């Protein structure tokens, strides 16, 4: 077992060895060094062929057409392009958007940016389990709503939204649906046609691919275009200029191909680990599961520990790489706004730990993690003035 034990897969996953090998080959081969936009010569066309292969692999995982996939620098950029790009492109049709308090910062901050420029945003609040009922989405729609943006699997709690039901509602009301699938792609089944999703954000590094590359699916018929956020050489159908990074995109394609192949097995693997972890942690009195107990993805388990302070708890877990609050907000240490939105008091939102695991995680690592948490909590409670029922 390699220490510290890495249980922060929701923040970033290790690159799959097959993906790393392919990327290395791509970086090393002079014949693939050309700019994939240099279609005038053989080297450029060789690079472009790799890019197009990857586009098809990414499309295949979510049942999209290759032409509907735009490569970006990651899910943050995809979210921005989906939310701001759609809002700007459709501003004459309406200036109202629906999203949730539990979204990733990329969506939240994009919506705030729009709000500061006159768009109206309805911020849906999840129930105590972190769920948003499709009926709540329907109730939030207004005549000038142009976009609903909701994430599929929440990056902090792992809770799964019923995007298919939400998709049907949006279609019925002729409103576009954007889904942030950074956490769900390759872990839950996504079918943009069956689920009636119009825009879908994807990230490679959450799925054993490289950091710094992502994609946005844009339904060819329903959406067609969004307003670009960057301007330049016309790459990616004019929606995302800049030299396409062949090795990055090829790595993403391979990672997505592997994920498609392994989805059922891996989902089972992480679910077993998650159940083992939860069973182990439940020995502790005053431990609370954050998010719905059943409707959740297998790779994330988020708990709060009553009676201990968050920073000290996190500090005690030096042998583990885990997250306290969102991976993306761990630069600050405010109480997680996502858990606050679920109604957790500040102290419990702060004493939350997100465990996330994946392909290379083992039962021994999970058992080690349980041991670490039990010991840390016992230590902190040994001098805590807060009494915990059953503790």
């Amino acid at each position, binding site marked *: 077992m390699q220490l510290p034990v890495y249980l922060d897969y929701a923040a970033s996953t290790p690159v799959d060895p097959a993906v790393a090998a392919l990327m290395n080959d791509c970086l090393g081969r002079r014949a693939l060094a050309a700019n994939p936009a240099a279609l005038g010569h053989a080297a450029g066309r060789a690079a472009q062929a790799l890019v197009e292969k990857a586009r098809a692999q990414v499309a295949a995982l979510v049942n999209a057409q290759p032409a509907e996939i735009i490569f970006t620098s990651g899910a943050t950029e995809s979210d921005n392009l989906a939310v701001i790009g759609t809002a700007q492109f459709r501003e004459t049709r309406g200036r109202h958007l629906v999203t949730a308090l539990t979204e990733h910062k990329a969506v939240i901050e994009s919506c705030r940016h729009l709000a500061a420029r006159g768009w109206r945003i309805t911020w849906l609040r999840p129930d105590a389990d972190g769920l948003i009922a499709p009926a709540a989405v329907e109730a939030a729609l207004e005549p000038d709503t142009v976009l609903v943006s909701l994430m599929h699997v929440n990056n902090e709690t792992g809770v799964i939204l019923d995007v298919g039901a939400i998709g049907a509602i949006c279609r019925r009301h002729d409103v576009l649906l954007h889904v942030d699938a950074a956490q769900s792609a390759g872990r839950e089944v996504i079918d943009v046609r069956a689920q009636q999703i119009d825009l879908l954000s994807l990230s490679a590094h959450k799925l054993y691919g490289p950091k710094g590359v992502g994609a946005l699916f844009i339904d060819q018929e329903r959406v067609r275009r969004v307003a670009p956020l960057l301007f330049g050489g016309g790459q990616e159908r004019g929606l995302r200029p800049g030299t396409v990074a062949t090795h990055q995109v090829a790595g993403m394609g391979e990672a997505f191909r592997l994920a498609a192949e392994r989805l059922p097995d891996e989902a089972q693997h992480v679910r077993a680990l998650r159940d083992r972890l939860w069973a182990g942690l439940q020995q502790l009195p005053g431990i609370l599961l954050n998010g719905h107990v059943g409707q959740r993805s297998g790779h994330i388990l988020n708990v709060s520990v009553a009676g201990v*302070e968050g*920073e*000290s708890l996190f*500090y*005690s877990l030096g042998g583990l790489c885990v997250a306290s609050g969102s991976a993306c907000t761990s630069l600050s240490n405010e109480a997680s706004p996502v858990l606050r939105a679920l109604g957790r008091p500040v102290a419990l939102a702060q004493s939350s730990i997100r465990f996330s695991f994946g392909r290379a995680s083992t039962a021994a690592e999970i058992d080690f993690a349980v041991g670490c948490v039990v010991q840390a909590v016992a230590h902190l409670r*040994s*001098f*805590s*003035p*807060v009494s915990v029922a059953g503790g």
Partner: protein
Amino acid sequence: MDYSGEVALHFAAPRHAGALPPGPGTLVRGEGGSLEQGAWVVFELRHEAARVLALAWQAWGCPHTIAACSLAAGKLAGCTRAELQAFDALSLRAPLDVPAHKTGRLLIIQDALHKCSAAWDNGG
């Protein structure tokens, strides 16, 4: 967040931590802070003949808070009434390398100790 080696040592093996066991002398108690303030500290001590016989603390707070309680308790074990009155929790800042935005935590400890001292003065 960076924690100094001193903080790490006190955090791992805090001195005088936990509930104060029964024993001789007069018991006084002082609290500072709250969950809402991000740190909650309780000091208890037993004294006799203007001297601390035993003391202990409980804390819910960050590693700096816990280390500061431990360091303070170590310094105050066996001290006189005058020494307790004179104790300045801000003096813990340097040895523990407490960052500026956390000096409030030291004041919470000061508060708890001040209440102990006041209770003692009031015949507690």
